[in-house]
């Protein structure tokens, strides 16, 4: 929608500055956003587009400048304010909980937070989700019941985009590379949707590297370069070629120093022939001795994968590996992602540099402090660190200085070939120059570099450069041809993969059954029941089943309790003793003083959720907290019952022994337990939050739910399950013993793994867990009837654990290979 002449902007960004230390990410950037306008935002890598968007969404506070909404200046501007004025952003890194289904991801955002849910809310949510998807992407074929992780990347992108459209008072929609994974027709649909939104008066900021698309969709194109405005234009009045030129800027001719290239050595350090992997296609490249070779192209075109593949080849040096990489020298790797793949945060500069070459400072078997310090001192002086000395902690340095240490590490390693993965990300210009100088110098000493940079201008220092797009090398540029303009041109070159990736998924009932997480535990259970029945047909009778299933009940509850902790990504190592404590509370305390007993049980639930809060707030590994807590449980249990004793209360026995017609009572209890757990997690509204935090807590919090509260709820539900486990345990063994339930810790963990739960959190199957628990307890029965030494039984559980996990590993690998 074209804006009217006299219209005033809905939101104005005035002279926005954003500095990271000395790095100037944005300088005096200006952006007016009018209602119903589509702004195409373009700029090469590192131009500051993402930073600007983070300021608009309130994630980053600007260093300077004003933010005005309806001509009113806002003094405070955070994500909350951004939400209030109706700004919504589709993140590139997808803020979806991949374990939840499509409609749940939508519902999380707009459902009321009340405890009780309206009837048929799921039906309503599904319909809403379907309508929403259908409205903007007709014929999308996305099943809203499907878990997000099973969708293709393109489908995920559609879902993510639609999720941002859910906002009630949507005013400004930011789409960051929304079509990077979409096919042409889906991209068309998105463009149509954008037009529709714009007609409704919603402003859209459309960021894309696809220039034709930008021209198609936007009313106004805003150009950015080096963190500054580079002007605006009207799409109809400009050619794509001109746009590319404007992005690349004037051709700087600072190539004078490159004229003096020394006589090139012909020694080939790296030789890649026809490398093709999942994300790379027909890569041919070589690096000669004493050469700095650049690697560029749009972010995510496969550069990092290529660098990793080369680094992996170091294990087979001077041999041509089957994927076509031949590496003839030692190699070092310097990453620009300092926090994730670079620094050792607990160390000082000295150790951070030294670690790559400890052999050099060895005297005999031991490291020599003197030699080591001389070595790092040399580099410290040479690189002019801004720090107190070689023993300054690395984390006290600025990003640029940290990066210097990492580059020094790479050179110190003594490798002749150094891979640089975006080494100047977030590094100020002065330090950058120093780093370039360092590379030049090392080059003269005969070292070779492969430099991947997300900043196109940086490639200009290279002797040669490869430009990639969509996993292919689109262009090889020689010294004088390396200009930002050429790089940009080559980055946008269309490629057609000879190899087409298939996304066809087969849907038939067989794969649905075998793919189900409950398949393994249910099959194991059935086999175990059959084998047991073969050994002893009597167990299939009413009383036989009642006895056998009865002994399985405590394990079912214990495992379900474990499951509620595992769903949030934690583990309870102390449930063996907490079940023991409940056992004591029920058999000793509850029988003698019911009121005190009930109070104690309530305090127990509170203690469990407090444990969850501790794990979250203090960020302590759950395993250690629960390990420590188990001694608290044991301590209390021993105080109440120093020696085994007590008795199972009458009412409990009555429930347990109740003769239900046809189906024995324990089976009914089992089914109810599994069904209730399933209802809480998969039917109740809050269940999707409980599962969501195990997968993507940030997405849950972004949707306005409290992570802490959800985690405490998970622990509290687990405590309730532990109470039931303790009660049924009491009913089975008719007395109390603080130490008797210890084995349930191990058994419950084995059960949930057999039951198809993911230890990483988010994915659990109550039915599978219940079946798994029955299977486990039948295995014990089987071993007993086979007259296997009872001592073997724990070992069998141990083997099952490792075995099941190993099977999972293999099947995951297969899935990956598909």
């Amino acid at each position: 929608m074209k804006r009217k002449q006299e219209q005033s902007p809905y939101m104005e960004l005035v002279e926005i500055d954003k500095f990271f230390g000395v790095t100037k990410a944005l300088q005096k950037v200006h952006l007016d956003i009018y209602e119903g306008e589509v702004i195409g935002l373009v700029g090469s890598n590192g131009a500051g587009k993402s930073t600007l968007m983070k300021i608009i969404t309130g994630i980053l506070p600007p260093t300077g400048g004003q933010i005005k909404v309806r001509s009113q200046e806002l003094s405070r501007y955070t994500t909350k304010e951004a939400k209030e004025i109706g700004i919504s952003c589709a993140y590139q890194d997808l803020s979806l909980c991949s374990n939840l289904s499509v409609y749940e991801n939508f519902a999380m955002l707009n459902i009321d937070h009340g405890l009780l849910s309206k009837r048929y809310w799921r039906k309503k949510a599904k319909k809403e989700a379907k309508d929403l998807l259908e409205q903007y992407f007709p014929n999308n074929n996305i099943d809203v019941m499907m878990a997000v992780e099973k969708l293709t990347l393109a489908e995920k992108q559609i879902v993510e985009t639609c999720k941002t459209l859910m906002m009630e008072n949507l005013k400004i929609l930011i789409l960051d590379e929304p079509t990077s994974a979409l096919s042409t027709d889906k991209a068309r649909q998105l463009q149509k949707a954008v037009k529709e939104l714009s007609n409704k008066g919603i402003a859209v900021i459309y960021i894309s590297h696809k220039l034709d698309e930008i021209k198609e969709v936007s009313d106004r194109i805003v150009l950015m370069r080096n963190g500054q405005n580079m002007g605006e234009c009207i799409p109809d009045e400009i050619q794509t070629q001109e746009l590319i030129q404007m992005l690349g800027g004037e051709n700087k001719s600072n190539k004078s120093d490159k004229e003096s290239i020394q006589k090139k050595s012909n020694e080939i350090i790296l030789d890649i022939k026809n490398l093709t992997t999942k994300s790379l296609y027909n890569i041919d490249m070589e690096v000669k001795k004493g050469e700095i070779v650049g690697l560029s192209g749009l972010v995510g075109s496969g550069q990092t994968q290529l660098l990793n593949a080369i680094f992996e080849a170091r294990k087979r040096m001077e041999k041509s590996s089957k994927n076509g990489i031949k590496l003839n020298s030692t190699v070092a790797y310097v990453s620009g992602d300092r926090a994730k793949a670079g620094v050792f945060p607990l160390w000082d500069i000295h150790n951070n540099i030294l670690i790559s070459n400890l052999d050099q400072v060895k005297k005999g078997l031991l490291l020599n402090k003197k030699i080591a310090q001389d070595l790092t001192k040399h580099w410290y002086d040479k690189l002019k660190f801004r720090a107190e000395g070689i023993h300054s902690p690395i984390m006290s340095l600025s990003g640029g200085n940290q990066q210097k240490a990492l580059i020094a590490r790479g050179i110190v390693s003594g490798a002749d070939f150094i891979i640089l993965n975006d080494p100047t990300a977030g590094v100020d210009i002065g330090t950058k120059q120093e780093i370039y100088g360092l590379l030049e110098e090392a080059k003269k000493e005969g070292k070779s570099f492969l430099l991947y940079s997300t900043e196109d201008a940086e490639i200009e220092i290279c002797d040669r450069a490869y430009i990639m797009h969509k996993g292919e090398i689109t262009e090889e540029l020689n010294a004088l041809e390396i200009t930002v303009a050429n790089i940009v041109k080559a980055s946008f070159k269309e490629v057609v993969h000879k190899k087409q990736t298939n996304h066809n998924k087969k849907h038939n009932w067989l794969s649905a059954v075998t793919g189900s997480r409950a398949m393994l535990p249910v099959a194991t259970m059935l086999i175990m029941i059959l084998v047991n029945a073969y050994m002893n047909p009597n167990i299939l009778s009413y009383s036989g089943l009642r006895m056998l299933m009865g002994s399985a009940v405590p394990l079912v509850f214990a495992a379900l309790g474990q499951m509620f902790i595992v769903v949030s990504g934690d583990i309870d190592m102390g449930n063996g003793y907490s079940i023991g404590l409940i056992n004591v509370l029920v058999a000793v305390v509850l029988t003698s003083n019911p009121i005190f007993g009930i109070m104690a049980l309530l305090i127990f639930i509170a203690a469990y959720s407090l444990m969850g809060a501790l794990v979250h707030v203090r960020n302590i590994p759950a395993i250690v907290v629960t390990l420590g807590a188990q001694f608290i449980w044991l301590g209390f249990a021993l105080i109440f019952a120093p020696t085994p004793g007590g008795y199972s209360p009458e009412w409990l026995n009555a429930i347990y022994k109740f003769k239900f017609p046809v189906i024995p009572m324990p089976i009914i209890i089992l089914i109810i337990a599994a069904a209730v757990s399933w209802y809480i997690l998969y039917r109740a509204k809050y269940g999707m939050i409980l599962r969501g935090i195990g997968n993507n807590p940030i997405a849950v919090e972004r949707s306005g739910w409290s992570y802490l509260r959800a985690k405490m709820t998970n622990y509290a539900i687990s405590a309730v399950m532990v109470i039931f486990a303790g009660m049924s345990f009491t009913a089975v063994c008719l007395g109390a013993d603080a130490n008797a339930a210890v084995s349930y810790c191990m058994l419950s963990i084995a059960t949930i793994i057999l039951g198809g739960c993911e230890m990483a959190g988010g994915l659990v199957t109550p039915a599978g867990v219940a079946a798994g628990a029955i299977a486990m307890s039948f295995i014990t029965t089987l071993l007993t009837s086979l007259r296997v030494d009872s001592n073997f039984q724990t070992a069998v559980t141990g083997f099952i654990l490792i075995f099941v996990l190993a099977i999972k590993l293999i099947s995951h690998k297969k899935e990956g290979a598909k």
Partner: protein
Amino acid sequence: MIKKALNQYEFIWPLLGSVLLWGLIGIVSGKFGMNLLFSSSKLATFALLLALAQMIVVTGGDGAIDLSQTYILTLCAYVSSHLMNTNILLGLAAAVLVGALCGLANGVINIYLKVPAMITTLATGYIIFTVVLLAAPKMKTLPNSEFVSFINSNFHGFSMLTVICIIVALLLAVLLYKTKYGKQLHATGQNRTAAKYTGINVNFIIVAAFTLGGALCGLAGVLCGAFIGGAFQDMGSTYFLPSIAAAFVGGTAASGGKSNVAGVCLGSLMMSFMTTFLNAARLSPGFQKLILGAFLVLILVASVSNSSKKK
């Protein structure tokens, strides 16, 4: 300044704790003196060796932890008691070797089957325990008397056990802080991805850490079996909590990458004083466990928040 010193010399905390408990025991029992120190450090031996082993494994990072330690200790106590009656050195070597093999199994399963360390060691722990249960009836459980008298001999007032501990601790300190392996282990624990890109063979480092930890548990088993006069099935469980507590109170970062041999030694001493104190105060076993558990959780809350502040 004081804060900085505290951060640098984390063993001050367990040292202060030890001194405090020493005084408290004196008040409760009415007996003061060096004897208490000697006996407590002697009793600390087994938890100390386990704690050092735990420290090495945990330093490998990525949630690595060895829950099978106490079972390895028990198994190795049996092995040594059985073989030492043939030959002392054979028994010692075999027990340490068995311990190392158990550790190796843990490491291999953890790294190559990609089973989380905690679950791996939980499972292997039970398997090892089963081996103990099966093998125990067929083994001689009484230790070699010569070795027992060597263990119980004194060296200038210090028990031979304490001397052995000091030697082991010194060797470990050299390994961890003065050798290539030690540096690489600490680097791996801080940031496995960065370690990989630095060219460190992460898999080897972790498997070796588990193996070394297992060997130390084996040594603890040998000494423990001889000291308490024979192996029995449940002998390891007493040391589980003190060893974990000592490892973390001594300055081992739960997230990996940071170890402190001196701190862990003093931490074990403190836990040993703690046990003596709880006994001397004539508390019931229930209260003892309760206090120990609460103590451990509090230590964790304090120490973990310390390290997160530093980031």
